[in-house]
């Protein structure tokens, strides 16, 4: 019986159009995403069809697939009531179990069958000839089967059971879908918090219903080799997660069977009390008031809008959506953005993008959902015949419905602002900046919301039913996300899209709002046309087909609809033309394809010149006139070029930014051999080749400006307040380098380039002729002028400042050698100075942002002390930190000048002394660069950034260690370890050992920190600093040959005293070494003398990894800390008092045990308790003592 019911249900559902719709949609989606080379499946060296790549996509589909599954299983419950067939079915002798579970099984089976098109489509897509074979691996059946049995089938069963119980309890399709929506939003919230709080990753992994997080946890530190060859082991978090959710699914099914009643639900008693007031005294014979429909328009509009709004506000789904929206954005705001755990102050320009990101989804769901509900409401409620027969004019349907949705949306926006203000109060930051919220949030987003409402109403008024309308809107939303990825990025044809408007406190909305509002006006005109068309095509009466309505349309255009549509069309075409003129004629519109093509062509044409001997800029004179109010900069300058090579130079290659408005170069004694304006590449043939040591002069004039507005990429460097330019952006460069070329292997192959663009090998001594930023040592004389109320700054000592004709001019001269790579800044700054041991420390900041200025000064002071004492003297007599707008989130060190983003540090919330002090950390890092980059700089080859970034990290770590003690360091190191391990999985080329780092950030920053910290633990801080000094002394301010990383490694080797230390240096710098250190059930036994016998068994191993992540075990022989504690290190209030003993013990590969006798019973024990070593499972180093 059961099987027959299930079989009937399966056949029934397979005849359901939803089955075939699901098959088609998911086939297309899965095929499209797998077969489109632009979709980043796999990535880096991970194959597109690697099992985990496919599983990740499948699991992502499962979130959407639950809407289909729900349609199947809810139909089981609801259809008998809807058709009225229920009474007949339920009066048969069938049992509740057979009836429900039989049907459930059939429906879930149908859902699972339809799901199978996803792996089939993926497999089919992986055979497509246009896919780059290097991005594909063998198609193993195992991966597909694993995906189906571990994710597909369980996810379907679980969601089916959950929404089956929802349908059983609510007996309503609508309410079931509200539950689905609530589930989706709860899922989204959980996942977003999960990504913000990786420390609770395992918990999120267990509770995330689809298994996506659990899968992510399992493969989080996987290398490309593992991704391409392995299936995730079904154990740990993944296994627990799958079992837990299957159990939840079973419980839901049991609940559904238990709560289902065959009997009809009785009507609820009417809650309104009977009125017993006397009947109204009314003269029934008097005539009723007459209707005057012609003059009732305003009343009709108001009343209709009010009724429609009430329908939304009073519908429980709205409350659910609002609550979820509040939860999502509230959590997003509460955790906010942070920097190494230091929160950011909730200023308007920080909060608004978060609100737009986290809250925007809900109004959009509301507009899509309620547009469907409202447009179809009369029909759904069977009121349409009554209402349509009234003299209500046609516009009084469309306009009030749109207005109602819009007003609801705007009130949700206001609500989100209230949440934001509440969060501000919770963060003890009672500043609300209402004006900014109004101009940057309520107004633009409100307008966008109204446009979404109009679009959704338009789609609904055209579609044959509301489900089709919803589907079209969802497709539209997906398209607006996917199309830009495919290179279709012009906001003129992406409906309702506007250019990005970056916000900043320093520069407000800049000039970015201008273009955005032109686009908004353009789309408003578009929406007015849609509104008129919706009005003209409105379904009135019982005719629902589109064609008859379309035939009536031209006739109905007569009169005001035609006039309004005509005016709107005029506005649409007019603004569209103006926008096109600005984005495509005054400025260049470039798609991602154009940009990649540009990079590829550039490389094909000019990379061959990269090693060509070229003269060095040895003196630069620059006059930069900034006109920040009209986004214009005029640059005059001259170079003294010196031939520092050993050979004569016959040709000089000069590059300028091709986006400059103009560039002229005067090069006496040289003839222009070729000029390529597309790439800004000029080649001069010298009349007489430059001999070694000879100098020449070159003069130039350039202009950088922005006219009008762009579709994207408006200038965020040259801005009204807070300009930050570097000389590469405004002045000529000498010679070719590798910067800005394509690096992704798949992309390179697509453009017919060799698969890899790699720096020179460490062994290639010819590469020491250049340093890695291709800028030599020079002296400078830089004059910057700007408007009088701004302060202009460039590297060097300020020798003059004058104000005349509304302009302020300052001249900066440096006779100390600086790199020919420097910054030009200008803003309305406040200054705070501190004189410290003959050095002037200055912070230039946006006047309201004085929160952390003293902290920065302290960090500079402390850093100067440590660095001067341990590395060598500081080369300038001033250090300047200058704030720049929140358009980028970095700080960058130029000679005695450190541009420092508004986003990091200046508005960091450092009120909680327990949080990591990221402001001091970043400041110390940048100050460190005054030695490591601005005194010595690595050769343009592998390992170059180890001499700057890794050493700046080390410098900052030492400052932090001495300021805050080692306890704080552990939190840093753990963060660095996690970032390093995760980033190496996405490596696109090949992971390198530290000494061969190819500008890979996860290596030179994150691994570099770990390496240097362990090194100074083992060799001693003084020994490490001694080694650093030797290399500094040798190369300070020296030109070619520039230093190589191995010279520093050799210096460390000279400090190493034991074979273990030598081995450690090999492992840290020359190999990719991964340790696996773990404690196995330590025990403690009470001795007769009252002491404790403690045994700590450990399993320790060491592996060498290849660049692609394949690991081979290597013998471990080292002395590693073994510790006994009374609390778990790194948790809660763990500090020095919890340490019973920590000793370095000789350790070899494999298992071994350590024995201790202690007076106190330890509760935790383990090896490498502070995570000095790179260990893929750093949480099993310490275990509780039994």
């Amino acid at each position, binding site marked *: 019986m059961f099987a027959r019911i299930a079989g009937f249900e399966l056949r029934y559902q397979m005849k359901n159009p939803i089955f075939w719709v699901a098959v088609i949609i998911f086939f297309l989606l899965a095929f499209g995403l797998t077969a489109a080379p632009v979709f980043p499946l796999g990535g880096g060296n991970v194959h597109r069809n690697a099992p985990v790549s496919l599983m990740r996509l499948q699991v992502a589909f499962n979130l959407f697939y639950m809407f289909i599954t729900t349609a199947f299983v809810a139909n089981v419950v609801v259809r008998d009531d809807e058709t009225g067939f229920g009474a007949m079915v339920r009066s048969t002798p069938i049992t509740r179990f057979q009836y429900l579970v039989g049907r459930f099984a059939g429906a879930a089976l149908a859902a699972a069958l339809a799901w199978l098109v996803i792996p089939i489509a993926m497999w089919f897509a992986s055979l497509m000839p246009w896919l780059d074979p290097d991005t594909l691996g063998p198609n193993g059946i195992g991966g597909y089967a694993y995906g189906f049995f571990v994710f597909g089938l369980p996810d379907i069963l679980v969601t089916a059971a959950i929404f089956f119980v929802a349908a059983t309890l609510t007996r309503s399709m609508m309410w079931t879908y509200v539950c689905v929506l609530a589930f989706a939003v709860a899922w989204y919230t959980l996942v977003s918090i999960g990504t913000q709080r990786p420390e609770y990753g395992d918990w999120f992994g267990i509770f995330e219903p689809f298994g996506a997080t659990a899968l992510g946890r399992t493969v989080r530190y996987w290398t490309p080799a593992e991704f391409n060859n392995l299936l995730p082991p079904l154990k740990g978090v993944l296994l627990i997660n799958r079992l837990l959710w299957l159990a939840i699914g079973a419980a839901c099914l049991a609940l559904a069977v238990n709560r289902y009643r065959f009997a009809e639900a009785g009507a609820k008693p009417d809650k*309104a009390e009977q009125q017993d007031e006397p009947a109204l005294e009314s003269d*029934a014979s008097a005539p009723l008031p007459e209707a005057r429909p012609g003059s009732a328009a305003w009343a009709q509009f108001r009343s209709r809008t009010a009724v429609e709004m009430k329908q939304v506000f009073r519908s429980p789904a709205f409350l659910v959506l609002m609550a979820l929206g509040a939860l999502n954005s509230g959590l997003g705001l509460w955790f906010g953005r942070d920097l190494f755990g230091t929160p950011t102050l909730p200023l308007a320009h920080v909060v608004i993008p978060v609100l737009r990101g986290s809250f925007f989804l809900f109004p959009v769901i509301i507009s899509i959902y309620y547009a469907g509900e409202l447009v179809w409401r009369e029909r759904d409620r069977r009121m349409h015949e*009554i209402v349509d027969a009234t003299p209500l004019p046609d516009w009084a349907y469309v306009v009030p419905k749109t207005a109602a949705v819009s007003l609801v949306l705007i009130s949700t926006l206001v609500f989100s602002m209230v949440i934001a203000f509440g969060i501000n109060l919770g963060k003890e930051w009672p500043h609300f900046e209402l004006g900014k919220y109004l101009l940057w949030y309520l107004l633009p987003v409100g307008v966008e919301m109204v446009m979404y409402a109009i679009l959704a109403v338009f789609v609904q008024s055209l579609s044959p039913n509301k489900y089709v309308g919803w589907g079209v809107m969802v497709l539209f939303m997906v398209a607006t996300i996917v199309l830009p990825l495919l290179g279709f990025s012009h906001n003129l044809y992406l409906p309702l899209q506007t250019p990005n408007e970056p916000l900043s406190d320093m520069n407000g909305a800049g000039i970015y709002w201008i273009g955005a509002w032109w686009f908004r006006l353009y789309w408003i005109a578009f929406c007015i046309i849609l509104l008129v068309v919706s009005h003209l095509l409105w379904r009135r009466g019982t005719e629902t087909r589109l064609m008859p309505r379309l035939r009536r349309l031209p006739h109905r255009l007569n009169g005001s609809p035609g006039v309004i549509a005509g005016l709107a069309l005029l506005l649409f075409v007019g603004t569209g033309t103006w926008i096109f003129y600005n984005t495509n004629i005054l400025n260049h519109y470039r798609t991602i394809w154009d940009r990649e093509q540009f990079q590829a062509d550039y490389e094909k044409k000019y990379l061959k010149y990269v090693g060509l001997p070229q003269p060095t800029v040895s003196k630069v004179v620059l006059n930069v006139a900034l006109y920040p109010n009209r986004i214009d900069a005029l640059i005059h300058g001259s170079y003294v070029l010196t031939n520092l090579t050993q050979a004569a130079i016959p040709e000089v290659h000069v590059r300028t930014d091709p986006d400059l408005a103009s560039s002229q170069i005067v090069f006496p004694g040289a003839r222009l051999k070729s000029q390529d304006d597309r790439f800004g590449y000029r080649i001069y043939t010298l009349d007489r080749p430059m001999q070694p040591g000879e100098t020449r002069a070159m003069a130039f004039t350039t202009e950088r400006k922005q006219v009008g507005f762009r579709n994207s990429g408006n200038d965020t460097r040259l801005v009204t307040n807070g300009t930050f330019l570097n000389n590469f952006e405004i002045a000529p460069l000498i010679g070719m380098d590798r910067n800005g070329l394509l690096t992704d292997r798949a992309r390179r192959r697509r453009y017919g380039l060799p698969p890899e663009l790699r720096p020179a090998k460490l062994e290639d001594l010819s590469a020491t002729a250049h340093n890695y930023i291709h800028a030599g040592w020079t002296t400078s004389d830089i004059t910057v002028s700007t408007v009088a109320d701004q302060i202009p700054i460039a590297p060097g000592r300020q020798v003059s400042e004058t104000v005349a004709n509304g302009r302020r001019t300052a001249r900066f001269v440096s006779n100390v050698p600086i790199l020919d790579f420097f910054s030009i800044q200008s803003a309305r700054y406040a200054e705070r100075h501190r004189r410290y041991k003959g050095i002037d420390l200055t912070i230039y900041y946006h006047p309201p942002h004085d929160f952390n200025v003293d902290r920065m000064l302290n960090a500079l002071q402390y850093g100067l002390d440590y660095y001067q004492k341990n590395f060598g003297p500081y080369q300038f007599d001033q250090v300047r930190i200058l704030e720049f707008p929140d358009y980028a989130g970095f700080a960058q060190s130029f000679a005695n000048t450190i541009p420092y983003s508004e986003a990091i540090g200046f508005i960091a919330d450092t009120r909680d002394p327990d949080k990591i002090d990221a402001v001091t950390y970043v400041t110390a890092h940048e100050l460190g660069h005054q030695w490591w980059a601005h005194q010595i700089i690595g050769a343009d080859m592998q390992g170059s950034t180890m001499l700057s970034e890794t050493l700046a990290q080390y410098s900052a770590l030492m400052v932090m260690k001495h300021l805050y003690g080692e306890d704080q360091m552990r939190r840093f190191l753990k963060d660095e370890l996690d970032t390093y391990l995760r980033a190496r999985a996405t490596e696109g080329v090949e992971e390198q050992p530290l000494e061969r780092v190819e500008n890979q950030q996860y290596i030179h920053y994150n691994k570099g920190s770990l390496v240097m910290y362990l090194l100074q633990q083992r060799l001693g801080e003084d020994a490490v600093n001694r080694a650093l000094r030797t290399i500094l002394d040798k190369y300070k301010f020296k030109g070619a040959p520039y230093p190589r990383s191995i010279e520093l490694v050799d210096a460390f080797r000279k400090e190493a005293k034991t074979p273990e230390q030598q081995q450690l240096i090999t492992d840290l710098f020359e190999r990719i070494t991964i340790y696996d250190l773990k404690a196995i059930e330590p025990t403690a036994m009470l001795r007769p003398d009252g002491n404790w016998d403690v045994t700590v068994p450990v399993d320790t191993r060491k592996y060498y990894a290849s660049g692609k992540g394949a690991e081979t075990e290597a013998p471990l022989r080292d002395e590693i800390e073994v510790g006994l504690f009374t609390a778990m290190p790194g948790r809660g209030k763990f500090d020095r008092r919890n340490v019973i003993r920590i000793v370095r013990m000789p350790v070899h590969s494999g298992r071994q045990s350590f024995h201790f006798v202690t007076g106190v019973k330890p509760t935790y024990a383990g090896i490498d308790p502070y995570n000095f070593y790179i260990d893929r499972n750093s949480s099993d180093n310490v275990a509780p003592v039994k």
Partner: protein
Amino acid sequence: MLELKDVSHVYPNGTRALDHVTLSIPRGMFGLLGPNGAGKSTLMRTVATLQTPTEGTVRFGDIDVIADPERLRRTLGYLPQDFGVYPRVSAYDMLDHMAVLKGIASSGERRTTVERLLVQTNLWSVRKRALAGFSGGMRQRFGIAQALIGNPELIIVDEPTAGLDPEERNRFLNLLAEIGEHVVVILSTHIVDDVSDLCPLMAVLAAGRIQLEGAPLALIEKTRGRIWMKVIDRSELEAAREKYEVISTRLFAGRTVIHVLADKDPGEGFAAVEGGLADVYFSTLAQSRRAA
């Protein structure tokens, strides 16, 4: 007042719901009688401007209904066969909203209208209750209340008594009778008694065509002496159908009462009966079936 000329309607699926319907309806109650599926609702909706007929003209006074539906709607009251209500809205609020839709902009006039209609339809005591909780009769009375807003000249009520219990039906018909004196009221129904109780004029619609038109009494008069009745066993029914033109059968105390149409006494135990409107109706239906 209301003139339909050659009105035909064919649905997209090919169903011919109306087939050259020509009717002339003066002031007063007009009954449109027909079985389920005869095209009554199509006709009602066509007159109520809710759908455009495939061909034909509809005029109300000087209004061309098809070309200018907006004008008719200003003076139209319509109670559809089947209608729902918005959830969570009370009778008072809904009627008030309908009054706005009908074009009563002033809130004072609206209050007068709503209150008086609620009293008139005997819904005053339940005006604050949600419409969704109304019984069938209450809901129909609410339906007529909204149809009466703004003194319409043309009132269309489509199958209003279906599903009402006898008491509710009486109450409803009384209400209709009150208003049916000065304006055009079209009442469509498949219940003969509704028409015979209320309407001075009627038509029978079957298979999309007007089969019969006139005053009920005159129509009954036409069948005088042509209706014969006999009580038979159920087993004899087939034979009777073969032999006579049986227009209706009903069970009475376990036996079957048949009415037949014949110009003279068929003998064989048939007795003459005084024909009612029901016999007129059924004989018309029987003829139309034969013709088809």
